[in-house]
């Protein structure tokens, strides 16, 4: 009855019966039930893995672009195709600018960050130009990009600004990574991430490519009409100084935590000032880039991208600063020039990286010279230093898990 094959028990016996059989006094029955449960788990696992492989085997769309023309209406379904990935150049320059801008952003993410489109899996890129009439804006609607023509009084065509295009597409990247909630500090970080990578795309795509000190660090410099005396929509180098005139008023962005603007979490309050307080992390990135030097999409951009991927929907300025510091140390060496630049940059905008992280790094530095001396006491100190680093890492992981739990609906 209980052969080595036990085919009957391997067929349709429900799991709850198998589990009961595990308690049977007969060891052959227990063994057979255990083998069946293990086999079932293995098969389930294999099916899961096959499913994963199947989806991975789907050919990436490689960020194929389609630009559509809204004809100055607000209806996207009614838009007509302007240009496709392999289609001919359009006679409409807005269509062509959007097409090129989406392409440069896609190429930046591929070459500089090894990311296949916004979702990492070759997500198609769709853009809609000539949205509405005299529309002074461009936005990301959650899955595609929308451009207005401007009113020709304040603003011109928003397809003219590569950093604005890359800014909007980067909202998609953020949504597929940290998912930073669009309000208060997490929202300002969301906006800042888009300005950071928007500016990096512009610097990377420039001919020749621009180093951090060659870049203008302006967002939307090209969208104003010539008569408007404004540098740009925002300045990452000098938040609060992008414009100041009777038509536009004064740029309200702060460049330091002491000037953080508390705004209502409403539409009228810009969801707690997400476009306003982004000036603070923007400046931190600019200072990091200048501090490290060279091309800002290299070490600074890599650090920020890694920190974005390690962040959650509720990450605030402090947590993000800490994460950039950690990532800089992990990627470029503890206490290296990169990590020091990150630390100094955040300090300059009024955010001090958490003391435990700095202490762990300092202890690691102290450990290095002592490693040459071999006696029991030095090894104890090295152990202590390692334990501090481990505990610090565990604390950071735990914080993120708590933040994740908090962000889930109950």
């Amino acid at each position, binding site marked *: 009855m209980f052969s080595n094959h036990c085919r009957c028990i391997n067929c349709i016996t429900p799991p709850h019966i198998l589990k009961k059989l595990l308690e049977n006094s007969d060891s052959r029955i227990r063994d057979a039930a255990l083998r069946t449960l293990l086999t079932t788990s293995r098969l389930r696992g294999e099916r899961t893995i096959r499913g994963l492989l199947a989806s991975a085997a789907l050919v990436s769309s490689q960020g194929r672009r389609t630009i559509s023309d809204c004809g100055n209406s*607000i209806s996207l379904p009614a838009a007509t195709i302007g240009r496709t990935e392999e289609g001919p150049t359009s006679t409409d320059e807005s269509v062509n600018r959007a097409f090129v801008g989406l392409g440069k952003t896609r190429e930046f993410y591929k070459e500089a960050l090894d990311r296949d489109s916004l979702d990492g899996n070759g997500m198609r890129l769709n853009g809609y130009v000539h949205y*509405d*009439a*005299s529309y*002074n*804006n*461009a*936005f*990301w*609607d*959650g*899955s595609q990009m*929308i451009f207005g023509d401007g009113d020709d009084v*304040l*603003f011109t065509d*928003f397809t003219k600004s590569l950093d*604005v295009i890359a*800014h*909007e597409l980067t*909202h998609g990247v953020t*949504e597929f990574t940290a998912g930073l909630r*669009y309000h208060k500090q997490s929202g300002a970080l*969301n906006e800042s991430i*888009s300005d950071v990578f928007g500016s990096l795309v512009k610097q990377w795509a420039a001919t020749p490519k621009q180093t951090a000190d060659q870049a203008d660090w302006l967002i*939307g410099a090209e*969208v104003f009409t010539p008569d408007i005396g404004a540098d740009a*929509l*925002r300045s990452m180098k000098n938040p609060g100084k*992008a*414009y100041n005139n009777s038509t*536009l*008023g*004064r*740029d*309200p*962005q702060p460049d330091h935590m002491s000037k953080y603007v508390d705004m209502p979490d409403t*539409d*009228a309050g*810009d*969801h707690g000032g*997400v*476009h*306003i307080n982004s000036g603070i992390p923007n400046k931190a990135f600019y200072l990091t880039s200048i501090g490290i030097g060279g091309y800002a999409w290299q070490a600074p951009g890599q650090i920020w991208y890694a920190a974005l991927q390690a962040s959650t929907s509720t990450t605030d300025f402090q947590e993000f600063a800490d994460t950039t510091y950690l990532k800089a140390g992990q990627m470029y060496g503890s206490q290296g020039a990169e990590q020091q630049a990150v630390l100094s940059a955040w300090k300059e905008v009024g955010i001090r990286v958490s003391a435990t992280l700095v202490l762990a790094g300092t202890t690691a530095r102290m450990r290095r010279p002592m490693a040459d001396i071999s006696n029991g006491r030095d090894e104890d100190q090295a152990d202590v230093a390692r334990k501090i680093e481990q505990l610090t890492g565990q604390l950071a992981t735990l914080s993120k898990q708590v933040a994740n739990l908090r962000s889930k609906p109950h």
Partner: protein
Amino acid sequence: MKVILAQHGGQAAGINLNRPPKVIDSAALDEPKAAELKRLVAAASSAPSSAASSGKARDEMSYTITIQDQGRETVLSQSDTTMSADFAKLRAWLQRYPKN
């Protein structure tokens, strides 16, 4: 009847914060324009948003239209991704109207 348009958010959110709302007093309009405004207001007031907000839009603009008429105040708030066709028509009319 007074109709007040305020615009919020978008890439130019900082600039929009600084700009005062646009106020249109129907008493200052000629009769055909006043009638047209009244029609647009009535249509927008009875039209719900075309879609619920997905919460995923970024840098979209939102609009608050406040109607003050005979001691009563009605506030309509919709955004680029949620506005009804009638709200969009009223918004466009108000935007086109020359500044005070």
